[in-house]
């Protein structure tokens, strides 16, 4: 009989990680662990603690503060107390502590924990800096930089804003951190990020780059999770019996995978994916239990993506075929030598004096020998739409492709920083290209795609 454990009265699942103190108080009251007089006593002590903290905040110089500020300090106090209460073996014990130990004492214990957690988070931050991936993805690099999470370690105020996390975090994790705040949030975020990096580091940066390039050429600007893409690709390789480290799945593999997976119903499919994960663990020698469990936690999300893709026959959107940008055909465009400034100035003056469009075009045709000069003229002389179209009519497909590459069409929001002349060029160019026959237009776009910028 001694081994029988007492079942806690408070259901742990009903407690919220972010507002632990509040939810504990509520649950303890509804379970009868705390009565009204206990609540009143606890609340009274909380006000006392708040009064002490506000006095400290004002350095005794002011007896009143703004309500928002007081609320913030109160939240910070309760968060700190909650942090300590969370460390107790079970919520019932936490309720007993609330009843028997002074709030100020609970706060002090919590405050020590906040400090300890801060140091731990700092340690993990340093570890993450060391296992950081080499990637051009901006959200990843900025989040991990000094102006991202780095801000937290300078701006965190455990005394009055322990529940806040002053940091700029754009990079989304595969398993987002939910229901946590303050230093706990940062610690968990960094722990998850560390594990994601650990996994990605098994693969060559080059292979990850090719995979993400295959996902989207502009992945550097996207808010994507690198780990999720890599893990999905690794599972795909495992399912297709490909070398997992290479992350290289082919169109052929996708076709056979589609046939293979379509036959199975949901539980079977989950089993197969799980099996693929186990094979991946073995091949990549993943033994770290935290990493294994993190990957396992990521699996349902990836599996549901695979299920949907099978339904819609879009498996290529889930298992990305890597693309090596270096192997893509490239076109290099030589603009020619620019004319000297004096000559250019004379030409512009002459162009501005021209009354007829035909004269302007003849002059441009005669004098301009370089593409860069032509571009400058378009910007400086501000030709009318008709003149612009006539000029473009004299150009070949390649020149128009270069124009598109250098003056890409953008939405009005993206184009907000452009000069008026630049804006007009893009507008005319877009109109011009859209009225071209579709075949020629496609050809021009194809050329523009493969052009290398100077």
């Amino acid at each position: 009989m001694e081994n029988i454990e007492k079942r806690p009265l408070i259901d742990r699942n009903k407690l919220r990680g972010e507002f632990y103190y509040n939810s504990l108080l509520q649950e303890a009251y509804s379970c009868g662990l705390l009565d009204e007089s206990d609540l009143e006593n606890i609340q009274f002590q909380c006000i006392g603690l708040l009064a002490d903290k506000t006095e400290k905040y004002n350095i005794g110089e002011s007896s009143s503060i703004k309500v928002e500020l007081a609320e913030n300090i109160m939240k910070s106090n309760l968060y700190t107390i909650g942090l300590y209460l969370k460390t107790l073996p079970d919520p019932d014990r936490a309720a007993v502590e609330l009843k028997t130990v002074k709030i100020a004492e609970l706060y002090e214990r919590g405050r020590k924990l906040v400090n300890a957690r801060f140091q731990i988070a700092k340690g993990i931050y340093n570890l993450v800096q060391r296992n950081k991936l080499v990637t051009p993805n901006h959200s990843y690099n900025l989040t991990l930089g000094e102006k991202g999470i780095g801000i937290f370690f300078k701006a965190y105020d455990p005394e009055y804003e322990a529940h806040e996390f002053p940091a700029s975090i754009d990079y989304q994790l595969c398993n987002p951190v939910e229901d946590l705040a303050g230093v706990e949030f940062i610690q968990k975020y960094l722990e998850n990020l560390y594990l994601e990096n650990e996994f990605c580091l098994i693969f060559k940066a080059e292979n990850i780059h090719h995979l993400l390039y295959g996902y989207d050429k502009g992945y550097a600007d996207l808010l994507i999770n690198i780990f999720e893409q890599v893990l999905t690709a690794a599972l795909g390789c495992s399912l297709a019996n490909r070398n997992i480290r290479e992350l290289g799945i082919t169109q052929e593999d996708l076709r056979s995978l589609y046939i293979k997976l379509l036959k199975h119903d949901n539980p079977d499919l989950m089993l197969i994916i799980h099996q693929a994960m186990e094979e991946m663990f073995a091949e990549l020698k993943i033994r770290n239990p935290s990493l294994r469990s993190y990957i396992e936690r990521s699996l349902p999300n990836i599996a549901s993506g695979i299920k949907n893709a099978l339904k819609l026959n879009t498996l290529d959107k889930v298992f990305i075929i890597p693309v090596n940008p270096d192997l893509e055909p490239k076109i290099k465009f030589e603009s020619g030598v620019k004319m000297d400034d004096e000559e250019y100035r004379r030409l512009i003056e002459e162009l501005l004096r021209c009354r007829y469009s035909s004269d302007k075009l003849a002059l441009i045709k005669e004098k301009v020998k370089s593409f860069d000069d032509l571009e400058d003229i378009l910007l400086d002389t501000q030709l009318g739409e008709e003149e612009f179209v006539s000029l473009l009519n004299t150009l070949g497909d390649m020149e128009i492709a270069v124009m598109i590459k250098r003056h890409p069409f953008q939405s009005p929001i993206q184009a907000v920083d452009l000069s008026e002349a630049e804006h007009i060029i893009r507008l005319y160019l877009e109109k011009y290209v859209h009225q071209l026959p579709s075949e020629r237009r496609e050809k021009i776009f194809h050329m523009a795609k493969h052009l290398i910028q100077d």
Partner: protein
Amino acid sequence: MSFELINVSSFLIQKQAVDKVVKCNDFTLRFGLSLSRKDALELVKTRTRTLKEYGRIEYGGGVIDKIIKAFCDSPYIYQHNYVETLHELIKIFYFYKNETLDLISDDELIKFMKNSFDGKCQGSLELLSGRELDKMARNLRAGYPLEYGEDTDCKEEKDEDGEY
């Protein structure tokens, strides 16, 4: 936890605050000024209302006793305008705690109020609130010293007309 819980203890806090205000009579009687318990309760209520109106929260006895002790020797305060003036001073005090973005301590603000009330405002609460404190708050927010701009204003006026 919301701030509703403050109501739990508000009665107790109010009682303590009233006691503290009434106790000030020991100090002010020598200037011929005194407050009844009812007056003290009304002053505390004004404080509570003003705090709520300006979105502030206060602990302990607050500043009423400090205001009383600072202003009781003013030549412009008599028993017949004592209570009324205190009500106004309390409202002005909290209004300017907000307007100065809490950049000034309670004691400093009360001292400034007293000096201006007895000096330039010659007992006018309107001038105190609408002119002197307003100017001081603007100075503080702009990062200037409290009395900044007074000399320069005078000089400018004198320079333009050749006289004050």
